[in-house]
């Protein structure tokens, strides 16, 4: 006789009345393959945990963003925000699509150069630029975005020493209705500081002012904030023309478009509430086009979009190590990927999904990483089916910031692979090993 399908025995308490965040058990989504390649196959070949990036998703997302802006505004230029994901293979995908590079350190600058980006197509942001960094940027004719007065004076001094000109913009901080305001970066718009800085730059003989920059924050859920920012920069753009008879080349609105991840504490899933590229593009283009700027002098619009272009393309594949019951009877599960690999788990409720049908019974669970630390929690409350030891799971939307902010801790960082447009896999960052890590160490005792 054929045996019946087994389903683990379960008893669950019925909570009376009290609003339970989850309501009816949800239908379970399953991610069984990425770009047509089965998850088990990827993990068999490249190990677990494993970061997987989809070139197809990157290109599709980029095309969508580009189209949203180019159909509304005549001159648009994206600059890939290196800090979001600076693996060379990823940067190359963006550069091949026409993206410039946006960097915030000497290291990122050199990385962009080594990826073949022309120095004049590098935007150099951030509060940390040493004299050495500035010298490199001047020599490569980069666009230097000045963050504060000390940097401005250091830059004037450096151009004098080199007897060379620098192409500059300033970073402006402003009230776009987004709280808290990131007023620690750049020069303030509302109190006139930005205008003062512009006046000083216009007087400096070795500085050529070419643009205006702002970055109002990250994961901005209201498109209208960009309209306010664009309007304020447009005002400065016109004021410079009026006073100095000088047209700048560009307005750079930074990054900050929300990815489809869900913030902790958000009621609705981010995939439903975050604006689309079209909505951001509409807000920004309208604001600039309807400003005082004459049509023939419209600036190039620069965008340093990071997370919204890469988050969706990244997956982390992981394996269940153990199931436990807490002393409160709560179901907990340990997986082999910890918060050291998933920095974004601190502010997102990341989506974790089985790679195959595991059980129809879902239960509110806590998912722990494998680290020996209490903070290592990937999800503190998620409705999840009963997975067994060895089952393979997929964490989605992890392409941004994780592969740059990760920490080597306790064990090696895993392989990162890229699936190309033909569906071929490539390791783009090798799993670390003892030699690679020890190669930085010096031991005076031996």
């Amino acid at each position, binding site marked *: 006789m054929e045996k019946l399908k087994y389903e683990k025995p379960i008893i669950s308490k019925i909570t009376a009345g009290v609003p339970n965040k989850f309501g009816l058990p949800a239908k379970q989504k399953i991610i069984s393959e990425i770009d047509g390649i089965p998850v088990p196959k990827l993990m068999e070949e490249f190990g677990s945990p494993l970061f997987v990036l989809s070139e197809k998703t990157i290109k599709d997302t980029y095309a969508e963003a580009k189209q949203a802006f180019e159909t509304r505004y005549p001159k648009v230029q994206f600059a890939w925000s290196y800090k979001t994901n600076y693996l060379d293979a990823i940067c190359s995908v963006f550069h091949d699509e026409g993206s410039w590079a946006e960097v915030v350190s000497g290291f990122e600058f050199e990385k962009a150069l080594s990826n073949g980006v022309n120095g004049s197509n590098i935007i150099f942001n951030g509060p940390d630029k040493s004299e050495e960094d500035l010298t490199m940027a001047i020599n490569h004719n980069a666009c230097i975005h000045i963050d504060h007065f000390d940097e401005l004076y250091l830059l004037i001094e450096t151009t004098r020493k080199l007897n060379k000109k620098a192409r500059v913009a300033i970073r402006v901080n402003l009230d776009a209705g987004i709280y808290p305001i990131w007023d620690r970066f750049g020069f303030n718009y509302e109190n006139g500081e930005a205008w003062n800085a512009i006046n000083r730059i216009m007087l400096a003989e070795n500085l050529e002012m070419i643009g205006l920059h702002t970055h109002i924050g990250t994961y901005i859920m209201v498109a209208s904030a960009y309209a306010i920012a664009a309007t304020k920069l447009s005002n400065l753009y016109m004021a410079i023309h009026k006073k100095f008879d000088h047209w700048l080349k560009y307005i750079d609105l930074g990054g900050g478009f929300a990815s489809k991840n869900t913030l902790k*504490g958000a009621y609705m899933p981010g995939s439903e509430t975050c604006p689309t590229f079209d909505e951001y593009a509409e807000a920004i283009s309208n604001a600039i086009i309807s400003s005082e700027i004459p049509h023939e002098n419209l600036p190039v619009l620069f965008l340093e979009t990071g997370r919204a272009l890469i988050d969706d393309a990244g997956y982390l594949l992981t394996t269940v190590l153990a199931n436990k019951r807490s002393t409160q009877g709560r179901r907990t599960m340990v997986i082999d990927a910890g918060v050291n690999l998933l920095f974004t788990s601190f502010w997102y409720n990341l989506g974790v999904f089985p790679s195959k049908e595991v059980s129809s019974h879902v239960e509110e669970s806590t998912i722990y990483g494998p680290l020996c630390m209490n903070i290592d929690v990937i999800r503190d409350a998620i409705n999840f089916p009963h997975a067994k030891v060895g089952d393979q799971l997929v964490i989605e939307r992890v392409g941004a910031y994780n592969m740059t902010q990760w920490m080597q801790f306790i064990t090696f960082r895993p392989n990162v692979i890229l699936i190309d447009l033909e569906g071929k896999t490539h390791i783009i960052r090798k799993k670390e090993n003892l030699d690679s890590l020890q190669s930085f160490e010096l031991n005076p005792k031996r």
Partner: protein
Amino acid sequence: MAKQKITLAVTGLNNTDNPGPGVPVIRGAKESEDFDVRVIGLVYENLEPGIYMEDLCDRIFQIPYPSSGSDELIERIEQIHQQEKIDVLIPNFDAELFSFMKNEQRLLDKEIHTFLPSLKQFQERDKDKLAEYGKKYGVKVPGSINLGTINQISDLEDKFDYPVMIKGQFYDAYEAGNEEQVKQAFYKISAKWGFPVIAQEFVKGTEVNVIALGDGKGNTIAAVPMRKQYITDKGKAWGGITLADEKMMELTRMLIQKTKWKGGMELELIKTNSGEYYLIEINPRIPAWVYLAVGAGQNIPDALIKLALGWDVKPMTKYKIGKMFVRYSFDMIVDLEKFAAISMNKEI
């Protein structure tokens, strides 16, 4: 003429001390002169009192919270629709509206009719945009500052005298009488509801409310003003009385005219001693005290169903002044079977 048979689905059967409007909406619909209503109760929880009330609902179904994703919620509604053929759906929770507004067309394609404000109408009345709203539509609103950090307290002190109201974007409001209390409220609210935290000028006066229904073309189909006579510690009316206040009516008609509001709404106003009206909040749905309007002669649920079905509805302009409602609590005796059925089968 025989009444038209329709099937009405309603959420918000939580007639607790912080009541949802579902039960009074159903009462209104059942008193309709034009419809013979079959009622489908949609519940999130197994203890919503409406489940247990005799002769209220013909069927009950549990539905998933919108936070698990609109698709799941809508799929469940579609599945119920296959069995029950819903003609009109009246959602009654703020938190649901987003999902239902977004899926209005999808539901309509299945012949489930709703009558909801547009996303734009819904969003422009957000609490942190009240100042702009007041300017745009010419209504007085209390001065407010959106707080992103605690350092803005000095701005607040420059602008307003204590006390001030400190509010969250979605829920929660505290009166704060000094800097320390502002800080406390700020931390409490920002931890729960995020930024901005809204600091509002405290307007002295009496709180008055209007329940209204707009047809989406600028006409006010129904409007009844009311003063809360007793407010519970949850801030809910426990008793209220209809008013004769032409100014409130004008204000309501003007707002509905200018915004072309579609659907039910509640205006929360403060009437100052000098007779000025300040708008403090707009609730984008029928409020829980809707049955007072029905009792006073304006059957708002009935009119909303007609609008949803595309009927031509004439504005109701009369209502009885001085009608009161008094809420009461009542212990129903119910059998465990009903509780077991909704908990286990997710439907009754």
